[in-house]
Structure formats: structure tokens, C-alpha cells
């Protein structure tokens, strides 16, 4: 999705005597002209929280598997150039070489004693040819490639500007990491500010450069720090013609989709555990100390009612017992992948009074809320960091965000009220079923027009982009509808097998009706919850790539259903369990 940002001037931090102003330039291409000016009461806290938000944006735990079209275009040109050079020089060298070899051969017959010397000449000539070899500098090219990747990823920090929203009761800063897996939202309560002007509500992207981040590090408790959002920009000298800063960004569609999903997932209910700073310290210290090199890489949270929470770190098998006590009524186990992402919160340990962890269930995002008094930092982790293809489909189905509902009514209401709890929305929109309203709220989230505030449990109005996002990014796809349809049939003929390699083999047969051919689907899931093998007898799968890059609706439906069964224990190796056996074991 192509987005154009326009700023009146670059954002800047100015310091006069003991007064520091953090001047943020808002995006002028938005309808709502946001403005704000307020003196911070705890500049150090704000500084450290904002620096942590920056860490979220640049955090990248993903494998570097993204397409690098610019690099490949360059590589292609480079190879072409080298081949051209090769073609240009080699024939001449080869010709000369051939002549010399011929001479050598004839002399070889005549002068046996000269053989060695002639071979030496041949070798030298060969070396000359090698000088023109197109692949001579392969390792240099490879090095250039990695440098290119590093430079490119670094530049993304300048690209993915955070979103700032001025609400009636707080100012929030939202950011999403470049690896599309970590979401951060810093909410600063209005009590934190001594307001210098009446704020104008709305959302904007802010020009938040690396230079500005350095300037923020100068915030001290003995200086007055003012946060200012000024649509007119910040021009110091009147003699200079102000120049607009324009950024044209091609935002990855998956990034937008991921941002919307994680920021809205907070609306879903789940298990909440309160951790002390020392608990978080323990987790981070363990992660800092141990770097896993093989699978499985999850941490298993063992939650037993009224008992201290235990975490098993695989593959080490180390158990960490936290101070926190689980207050739920049922024993549960939650497997968390991508645990190194948790290190992003370590900077907040000294600033926070407590950490609130929210698990939404297997395959769903997790949230950490750091309570810093007047400031609250919400960090959300998407669960499917390496399963891009399943990200959208699984989330929408599991979250129940299907259909449009009464989106128009919800949009109008929230645009007016800006921030309402679910119940308040239900009360305001009368004569409509709650399901429909919920679907409407889901659509609002998917369109990037709102997010769920986990701190106050309210839906907040916020436009993620300055232009409406394309339909493809929020509409329910055909495959999503199909998966929804098949989900009801998955358990009918489901079978599970557990292998000595500790892999689950799930299989099922979809009977879609008397006149339809039944389809046999099978997936193999490893200990990391990743699909390692898959197969389906349907035409769609057979016509496609026949691998994980092009799964059919049957495979997705089986996968969505199967993760509920991954917690099965004490299964016999290679024994086939039918669904009735499994249900019995679960009960």
C-alpha cells in the first residue's frame, strides 16, 4: 500500500537554557489537524518509555526470507555486466591460449623434456583466464548483499513512523515492529502533563527520526520538557524558505494487516497474570543467559490454580518458578513461541510497578502491560511470526471477526465519542443484536480505524493511515469463508498419531455432500507448532504448489482445529487415536 506523508518541517528537539521542547511534526495529509502542547511531569519516565518504543520498531526476530527485489535487480545487472566482460575478454585469451597449447602439444611430441615447462606456461595462462571469471568476486558480492540487507533494514526505522493519537484522557504512541510481530502502545495520561493549550483531538503519524531519538536522550529531571505537536512545523530561522518533508512509503500489506490484528486482539478475553518486576527480571535474565540452538524453542507456562506460576524453557527443560500466583480456576498450560521478543520489555523493569500478562490462547497474540503509574506501556506479540500464510486466516476465524456487522453505526458513534467501552457501545446502538455490533467493531479494527485499549478496556477511535486502506486488507477472503465452513466438518473424521520424533500427525476426511468427492487431508506438526509436512487430495491443492506456500482451505481448517489438541500428553507412539478417544482423554 502506497502512503504519502507530508510534514511541515522535520521533528526536532530544541533546548533553551533549562527548557527542552520535543517538537513533533504531524502528517499534514490527514483530515484531522492534531495539536498538543504540555509540560511533562516525569521526563525520565517518558524518555525511557519512548526509547523502548523505538526498540520495538527496530526489533527484528524474523528470518531474513523477505524478497529483496532491489538487490536482485542489482545482482542481475551485476551478473550481466560480468558475463559481458567475460564474453568480451575471454574469447581472445582463449584463442591465444589455444594457439599456445597447440604449439606446446606439437613440441611435446618432439621434446619430451620440455613437457613440464610447457605445462607451467599453460597453468599461467589459465590463471589469466581466471582473472576474467565472472564468479571470481562471489564472496565480495555476498558481503555486499549482507551489507545491503543491514542498510535496508536500518532504513526501515525511518520509514515506519509511529502513530500518535491525542485522546480526551490520554496521549498514545503506537508502533509496530518491522518484522511484523511486536506491537507497542505507550499511553500517557493527561495527568502527566501541565497543559499549555487546549489539545485538538485526532491521530497522526509523526516524523520520528533517529536523530530525534538521540535528542530525547538528553531529557533530564532538572530540565522542563514540553511535548509539542504543531501542524505548522518548527522553523528556527525566518530567512530560510520552509521546505515540506515528504515521504513516499510503500507499506507492506502484511505490516498493516498485522498492526490492525494485534492492536485489536486486545479486545479478546483471555487469562491474565500479574508479574512483579523481579519475575520479569528472572525471565529476561534467563533469556539473556541461554541461547537455544535447536528445537523446541518455546516456553511453557504451567498455570495451576492458587499456585506459583512455573515456566519450562525448552529445549533446556529448565523450570523457573515465579513469585506470581495464578488465580484461575482450571489448570492450564500455555506454550509461547518467539520468546526472545520478550527481551524488549527489559528496559521497563526498573520503571514498572507490575507487569500484566494476557494470554489469549494457542495461536493468538499475547500482551504484556507495564504499569508505570501515569504511563502504561502495552506490548503485544503476534503468535504466528513465521507462518505468514496462516496469520490472517487463523486470526480472523478464531477471533470471530467475520462479516461487516453494523460497521457504519459503530464508526459514526466512535468518531463522535472517541472512546467507549463495549457495554457503552451496546447501549448506544439500540435495536441491534450484540453479535452484529461486535462484528461491526471487528470491522472497525480491521480497517485500522480503532484499537482496543487494554488498560481501560475501551475501544478507541484512531485512523492508522491517512488514506482508507484497500479492501483486500480488511475484507474476509474467500479462503477464510471456506475455512469457516470446513471448520465444522473437521472433527467428524479426525485422527491423531504421535511419532517417536515427537511430531503430531493429524488427518481427517471432509465429506461435503453426497455428490461431492470427499477429500483426505493430513498435516504433520512439530514441537514448535510448525507444519513440517502437508497433503490434501483436493483439486485446488494438487493444482497449486503442493507445499506450505499454497495451502487449501482443508489444510487451514485442519490446522486451526489441530492446535487445540497439541496439548495432548502421554500418547503412545504411532498409535492412531480417533476423535472419540481424544475427547475422552481431554475430558
Amino acid at each position: 500500500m502506497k502512503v504519502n506523508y507530508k510534514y511541515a518541517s522535520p521533528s526536532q528537539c530544541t533546548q533553551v537554557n533549562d527548557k527542552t521542547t520535543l517538537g513533533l511534526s504531524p502528517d499534514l495529509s490527514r483530515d484531522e489537524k492534531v495539536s498538543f502542547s504540555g509540560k511533562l511531569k516525569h521526563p525520565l519516565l517518558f524518555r525511557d518509555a519512548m526509547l523502548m518504543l523505538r526498540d520495538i520498531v527496530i526489533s527484528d526476530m524474523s528470518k531474513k526470507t523477505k524478497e529483496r527485489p532491489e538487490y536482485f535487480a542489482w545482482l542481475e545487472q551485476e551478473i550481466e555486466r560480468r558475463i559481458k566482460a567475460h564474453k568480451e575478454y575471454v574469447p581472445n585469451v582463449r584463442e591465444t591460449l589455444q594457439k599456445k597449447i597447440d604449439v606446446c602439444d606439437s613440441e611435446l611430441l618432439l621434446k619430451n623434456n620440455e613437457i613440464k615447462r610447457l605445462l607451467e606456461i599453460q597453468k599461467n595462462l589459465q590463471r589469466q583466464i581466471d582473472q576474467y571469471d565472472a564468479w571470481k568476486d562471489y564472496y565480495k558480492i555476498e558481503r555486499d548483499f549482507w551489507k545491503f540487507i543491514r542498510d535496508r533494514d536500518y532504513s526501515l526505522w525511518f520509514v515506519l513512523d509511529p502513530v500518535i493519537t491525542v485522546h480526551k484522557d490520554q496521549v498514545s504512541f503506537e508502533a509496530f515492529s518491522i518484522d511484523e510481530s511486536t506491537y507497542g502502545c505507550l499511553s500517557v495520561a493527561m495527568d502527566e502533563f501541565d497543559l499549555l493549550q487546549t489539545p485538538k483531538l485526532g491521530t497522526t503519524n509523526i516524523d520520528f527520526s533517529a536523530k530525534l531519538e538521540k535528542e530525547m536522550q538528553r531529557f533530564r529531571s532538572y530540565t522542563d520538557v514540553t511535548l509539542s505537536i504543531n501542524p505548522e512545523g518548527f522553523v528556527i530561522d525566518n530567512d530560510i524558505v520552509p521546505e515540506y518533508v515528504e515521504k513516499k512509503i510503500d507499506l507492506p500489506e502484511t505490516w498493516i494487516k498485522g498492526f490492525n490484528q494485534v492492536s485489536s486482539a486486545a479486545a479478546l478475553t483471555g487469562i491474565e497474570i500479574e508479574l512483579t518486576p523481579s519475575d520479569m527480571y528472572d525471565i529476561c535474565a534467563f533469556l539473556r543467559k541461554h541461547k537455544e540452538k535447536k528445537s523446541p524453542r518455546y516456553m511453557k507456562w504451567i498455570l495451576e490454580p492458587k499456585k506459583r506460576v512455573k515456566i519450562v524453557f525448552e529445549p533446556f527443560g529448565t523450570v523457573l518458578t515465579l513469585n506470581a500466583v495464578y488465580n484461575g480456576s482450571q489448570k492450564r498450560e500455555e506454550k509461547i513461541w518467539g520468546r526472545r521478543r520478550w527481551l524488549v520489555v527489559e528496559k521497563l523493569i526498573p520503571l514498572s510497578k507490575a507487569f500484566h500478562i494476557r494470554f489469549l490462547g494457542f495461536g493468538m497474540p499475547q500482551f504484556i502491560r507495564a504499569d508505570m503509574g501515569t504511563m502504561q506501556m502495552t506490548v503485544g506479540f503476534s503468535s504466528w511470526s513465521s507462518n505468514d500464510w496462516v496469520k490472517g486466516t487463523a486470526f480472523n476465524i478464531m477471533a470471530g471477526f467475520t462479516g461487516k456487522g453494523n460497521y457504519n453505526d459503530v464508526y459514526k458513534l466512535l468518531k463522535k465519542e472517541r472512546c467507549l467501552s463495549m457495554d457503552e457501545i451496546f447501549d448506544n446502538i439500540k435495536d441491534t443484536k450484540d453479535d452484529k455490533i461486535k462484528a461491526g467493531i471487528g470491522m472497525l479494527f480491521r480497517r485500522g480505524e480503532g484499537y482496543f485499549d487494554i488498560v481501560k478496556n475501551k475501544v478507541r477511535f484512531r485512523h492508522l493511515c491517512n488514506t482508507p486502506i484497500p479492501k483486500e486488507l480488511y475484507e474476509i477472503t474467500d479462503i477464510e469463508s471456506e475455512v469457516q465452513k470446513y471448520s465444522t466438518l473437521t472433527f467428524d473424521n479426525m485422527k491423531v498419531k504421535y511419532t517417536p520424533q515427537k511430531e503430531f500427525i493429524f488427518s481427517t476426511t471432509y465429506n461435503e455432500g453426497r455428490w461431492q468427492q470427499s477429500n483426505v487431508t493430513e498435516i504433520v506438526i512439530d514441537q514448535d507448532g510448525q507444519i513440517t509436512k502437508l497433503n490434501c487430495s483436493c483439486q485446488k491443492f494438487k493444482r497449486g504448489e503442493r507445499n506450505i506456500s499454497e495451502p487449501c482451505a482443508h489444510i487451514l481448517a485442519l490446522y486451526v482445529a489441530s492446535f487445540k489438541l497439541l496439548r495432548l500428553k502421554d500418547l503412545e507412539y504411532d498409535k492412531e487415536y480417533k476423535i472419540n478417544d481424544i475427547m475422552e482423554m481431554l475430558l
Partner: protein
Amino acid sequence: MKNLTLQEKQRLWKQSINPIRKILLWGLDSKKNPCLLILYGEQKFEREIKSSPNSYYTEAYILEPIVTYTNYTIFHGVNGHLPSIPNTYYEKENNVLCYMKGYKTAYEHWYYDRTTGYRKVLEIDKKYIIKEFYNIEKNVSFNYYEKNTYTDYVSFLKSNQIKFEDFELIDEPSVLFGFKPDSLYYENVLNMFLKERLYTRKKCLSQFVNMQPSVEDYKQVLKSASIELACGIFQELTIKRNPILLETAKQIDESKVLWAKEAYHNGLKRCLKQYISIFDEKLMQEQKDFIYKTLPEMDFHIKRLKLNNKVLEGKELEEYLNRPYAYSNMYYIFGSQNLYKKNTYTDGKNIYNIKFKNTIQTAKAYKMADVIGKIAYYLDAPRTVYYLRGSGRTGAYKYYQRYLRRTIDRYKEEDEEKFITVAREMLTSYRDNDSLGMYSYFGDNFFFNRYFRNVIVENTASDELIWHRNINDIIYIAKNANASPVHEFCYAILKKANNQHKFDSYEIKELIDLSKIKYDKTAKLFIKILIPKLKMLPEFDTNIMISLMGVQSEKLQNAANEYFKRTNGKFSPKDVVDFLFLDTIETWYTVFENNINNFSSQEYIVFIKSLVEKSEDFIEQNIEFSERIIDLIQNSVEKVDTFSIKEKQELLHYFISLLLSIRKMPDFLFETMENIIFSIPYDLLKDTLNDIDLKHSRITEREYNIVSLLKSIKENILPKNSVILSILDTGSARLVKTLTKVIDKLQDTLTEKNTLLLILFECSVYALNKIAKSVFESMEIEKREKFHMILLDSPIEKAYQYGLEKLNDWYGNKVPKKFVLRMLEHPCVDVKSYISKKLEETFSNLNEAQPDLYIYYIKTLLYLPNRVSKSKEYIYKTIPEFLKYYPEKQKEIECILLDIGSTSIKIDSERALVAFAQIQKEVSSL
């Protein structure tokens, strides 16, 4: 078949389906409106003809001479006008009559019957079936091969008392048309109304118009004419530009009386409009302008395509469509998707046939040959062919093709100039992806094949004299062609023309121009003619040389090099600037470099000024140079060092006035200007600036930086901090170098400017860091301490590390408290860790520490997982000391210690609990 008699040969029928014969007659209905009666009869086979009596296959049939007419239909006219003669199809099997379109679009399937075997069944769309189709009850038979007149038919039908539904036959056509049988026009008029075949009717119409009838005669025809006939008359008059019926046309146009259904009547109005406007210059011009404006919209480029659930747009779509047979592969998609952008001729999904047809007819009527050529190209392109055929508009496609073919054929026969205009327009429009060279089942590229392909395939270039008569147009086409087959066509003709020595008289410049033709063979043809001429040239001509330099051909470039050397060529500075506009500048880099290197000082000044003068052209044409060209220009600035003082001053005056005026210039030129200004020695720059006023209006930041730096040099003051920051961020090396010089000269004033000094510490210019260090180290102690604290606050590593280093050097273990207090809230771990060691030594007591700040500090270090273990140890030692002075913070500290004490990290847990126990012990002992 050889034994057949003459009569039998006349009745020979080679198809297996019996022919259906029709008789057209007129009459009046009960409303006294003229009507058309058509009788239908099947002509039966008399016998089969076989090649031999034993042969299984039938070769042909002999038809019976007598045809029995069994059915009839009646078409009713409106408001005194006859209906147009419809194209109908009689389906004998089901005894159904339909319009021909119904037959062509009918669903066809085979039905099996045990007795008769397979039988084809047609399912005709009901809307095409003619309801007024009746059986003739009595026997009506005529000999098909006898020439019966209208009256013969009428008298037979009347004598046999055959009645028709709401229809009464007219005895004599003159009653309807007003022309008596002895009239000059009778025969023609009768055929115009009566003949079954459209082209026979049209031929008769042309003959009638050529006989130059009077207005009254025309009016007589129009009185009862059908829409079809009236349209034909007005179109014929439009082409002939005959104003005879202008008034009548206006009357008909204004009249509200319909001649047929409204949709048909609109067709007549369209013809009338064309006819009327041809005699009104303004109207005609308006219509022509409209056609030219909307002409590109007739080219139906696909803008969006949904293929296999994937939407293709932009570059991706273009790539897909450029594949061979892309359009034929998506044959089934046409007409079902919104492929196009809405415009005058399409609603996005389908083409407005009437508007398309109207434009073609108008273009023909107004003799707009270029438009005809362009439309012919559009119809030749696969995108149009496959759209029209794929969306079931084959009829329309054939109609347009036929119409244009006839028009172009007529031009070819009668008006060569117009034909050549058509050819120019067509041939320059073809693109390589129009599949000109590919076989197509659907026969796209019809026009190219008809008029041009013979020259390529059958090598008829020398026979087709029309092209040789218009060789300049062929050259124009060759220059502007974009498709290889077109180039091949041009090459074939130009080659023959060259054999006839037609290019011997061409000037060198013209030949150079022709050598740039994109087609290799053609370019080589002209290079071959050009090189001997070039060798004959005795003197160097700059214009010829620059033209030669713009040619891509290596052979010609070698020839140009040879010419340059042979004639001792030399370029003026202005010519060298012109080089920069050549596409081949990279090839001529050495010539460019040699010229610049050999410039005298005056020539170099002229060169630089010419560069500046052309700056707008560089921006307009969006010219970008390679790095080595830019480097060459910028490195050439070194020449300024050898200039005399006067010359340097001249350049400086020129550039400063340029800088103060608001003039846009490309980046490389701006940097060159910057380099030239600051390559002038500092003292000379200062002296020269004394006479220059540096006042300016609002300028860009980049220009402002230069002006500010010049002002600083002139007035001996330091630039503003914002300017220094901006120069350090974005300035060129030369600008930073000059700034360093300015700061170096004015470093005495830096002691009072702490902010600037910090900037110099933090920047990445080594010389400036060095100046800052020497200024800092030579400061008075009081000022130094104040700045030292500022330096330690810096988030830049090299700045605060230097500050820490100096702390160690100057104070050793006795770091003053104010420094330590200041560093407590530093964001970097290194700094915090550093002071942890000093806390105990510098604080004999901790009564001066701000309690909240201290707690913030210890928390940020103690809660740092798995890092700064030694620092943590130091901190734990300071805690009991701190609590001596701030006992009210004991609870808060205890909470922290207990929290850390509960962690699983043994070393941290132990230290925290030991510190906790120590507090408990010490406090209780107090």
C-alpha cells in the same frame, strides 16, 4: 456434371440444404402505412448428381425450377415510411422465422433419434423470433428461373384471391414512390427499394445519386423511404459534399415525426448531423476537434484484469499482456469484466458500438485520413480484435473492418496523398507487442497484411511504385516506427530506393539523422552512404561532430573519431556543455575529459558560466549523469587554483550574485558552485567579500548555509549553531573544511559558547573534535567544570567517554559530587556503571543525593538482567549509607531488595538479601 444441359447447369446446387427463396412486395396496412411483404418458399431437389452411379457421396443437386411459397411475413412501416429490409432466416425444421442475428447467436445442439439418427437442433433466442409469420393457405408457385416482374406477382396473388393479414397489395409501385414506369429513375428507384441484397441496393443508390436527380426527385424518394435508404442517401451526399438536400435535411432533423422506432430514427439523425455539419465550418471543426480529442480513447488498453482470483494492474498487467498470445488466452474474459477505464467509447466493460461507428463514419465523411489510419491500427491490434470477437461482437468487427477496408481501398485508387497519410499513421502506431509477426487464427493485423506485408513476404518493393513516389514519407515512417515488421517494410523499400541512387543528394546532417534509425539494417544502409561522404569532408564542423557523437553505432563513432583527429577538431567551451545533453556522453568521456583538462582559465570560466545558463534545461529534461561525469566536473574545480586573483574574484562575484538570486540548479552544479567558492583561499575570499553585499531574501537552507558561512568569513564571527549543525549534517566536504577553518580562526570565542562546543564534541569531524578538546582543556577551572557536566550529559558515546576519561585524569578517585549527581540520570549504562564505582569514594555521606533520583538510579542498574554485575556490587554497598540520611525511604528500598531477593538468579538474590539484612541490622542498632 459434364453432361448437364445449360438449363440444368443453371439449376445446379452444391449444398446439401435446400435454398429458401424470397419474394419482396409492397402494400398498405389498415392504418394506410406502407408495408413490406416477404414470401418464403423452399426450392426442392429434383435429383442428385454423383461422380459415378456407384458413388456413395452426392456431389451436387439439380433444383426443381418451380418454387412453392408456403409462408409469408409482413413488416409494417411508420408514418408513411417503409420499413428497412430486414435480414431474416427461415428455419424450416420448426417453421420459424427469425432475424439473422437470432440464427447466428442461436444455441446449437445435436439430437439423436433412432429413426433419423443425429439431428441438429437450434435454440433461437425468443427476442429474435418474428411473430408475424404465417402460412399461405393456397398454392403459390413460381418458376424461379423466369424473370417475373412485380406486377406479375401481384396479378397472380390477386387473381388467386390470396389474402394476407392486415395487408393489401399495391398494384403498381409508382403508387408508392411517385415515379411513373416511363420515368428515367423508375428502374433504379425500384431496385433501391426492392432488391434483397444490401450491396445491390447500395449500388443502385449510387447510380441514382450519380444521375443528379432534382430536389423534388429526392423528396419523392424520401417521402416513403425507409430509414436505411434515407441514411444511404445522406451518407452518399456527405461524401460527395453535395448540398442539394441541405434544407430538407434540416427540416427532417428538426421534425419530431419518427420514421421508425426511436433507436433506428436516431441513426438517421446521426447521418443528418454529419451531412448538415459538413457545410458548416464551425460545426465541422467542432466535430473534428472532438474526434481528435477522443481518438486515443478508441484504443482499448486493458487497465485491470482479474485472472485466477488475482487482480493484475500496472506493471504486472503490462508484463502479462506483453506475453505472446496473451489476448487469445483470455478470449473468454472479454465482455465479462471491467477491463477498461470509462471514456467516450466504453463503459468500462463494453464498447459503445454506435459511438465507435459514428466516429468512423464521420471520419470518412470529413475525409480525415489520419483518423482512418489510426482507427485501422486500433482494429488491427490484438486487444481490439480479441475484445470484439471474444465478447460476441464479431459482426461489428467485420463491419468496421469492411468499412475501413473499402475507404482505404478507395483512397489507394483515387487519392494517393490520403492513402499515404493513412499508411503513415498506421505504420508509426504499431508496436512490437501487437503480434505483427505471429500467426493468428482470428486474423488480427488484417490491414497490415492487406497493404504492407506483401512488400516483406513477397519482396514486391520494386513493383509497388506508390512507395517510391513518396520516399520521404517512408523515411518518416522508418524514423518513427516502433515495430520490427514495419522497419522491415521500410528497409525493403529504402534499399530499393538506394539502388536507384535516390539518397545520393542527401546532406551529411540528414544522413546522420537517418543513421539514428532504431532498426539496425536501415541504420547501416545510411551509415554506408554517410561514411564515404564524411571522409571527403576537408574541415572540422562542430555541428556535424556533435551530431555524429549522438549516434549509437560503433562504426560511426569510430568514423567520427577519425574525422575529429584528421581535421584537428577542437570544441568551444559552449560546445562541451552541449555534450552533456548527448545520450552517448559516456562513450565520449575521454573527449569530454581532454577538452576540460585543456581549457585555459578564460575558457574554463566560459564553460562554467555556460553550464549555469543551461541549468534550467538540465532540470527540465531531468538529465542525470554517471558518477564519473559528476566527479570530472567537480574535480575540474582544481583548475581554479591556477587562476589569477582577478579571475578568481570574477568567478566569486558571479557565483555569489547567482547564489543570492533565486535560481534553481541541479545538485551537481550547486556542489560545483560551492566547491568553486570555497576553493578560493581564505584571505582572498575575505578580502573579496568586503566589496560584496550579502543581503538576501528567503532562500533555501542549503543556500542559506553558504551565505551564512560567507558572512562569518566577512565579519569574522561564528555562524549560528543551527547553521553549523546543518552544515555538519548535509554540507559538502569543502563546506565543512571551510567551516573548520572559520572555527579554528575564531576558537578563542568558543569558551563562552557551551552549546556550540558540545556540537563540536559530538560531530564526526575529527578536526573539530580536536579544536573542541583543546578549547575545553584550556578553559578556566570554573567554566571547565560547568561544561564538563554538560559534556557528561551527552548521549553521544565518544563525547561522554571523553568526559569520563577526563574525570579520571583530573580527579582520579575523588570525583566531585556534583558530577556524580548529574550522571545519575544518564540514559547510558556505561555512565551509570562508571559512577557506581565512584559512589562510595566520592560520597563520604549521601546526604546530598536526591532520594528519588538515587532510587531511580539504583533500580535502572539493579534490574538490568545479566549485566554490570560488578557495578551492582558497588551499589549494594552504598544502600545502607543512603538510608542513614533518608530513613523514610527504607520501606521502598526494602521492597526493591526483597523483590530482587526473590529472583532465581542466585548472585543477585544473595546480594540483595545480604544488603537487606545489613539494613535491618544497622537500622535496628540505630
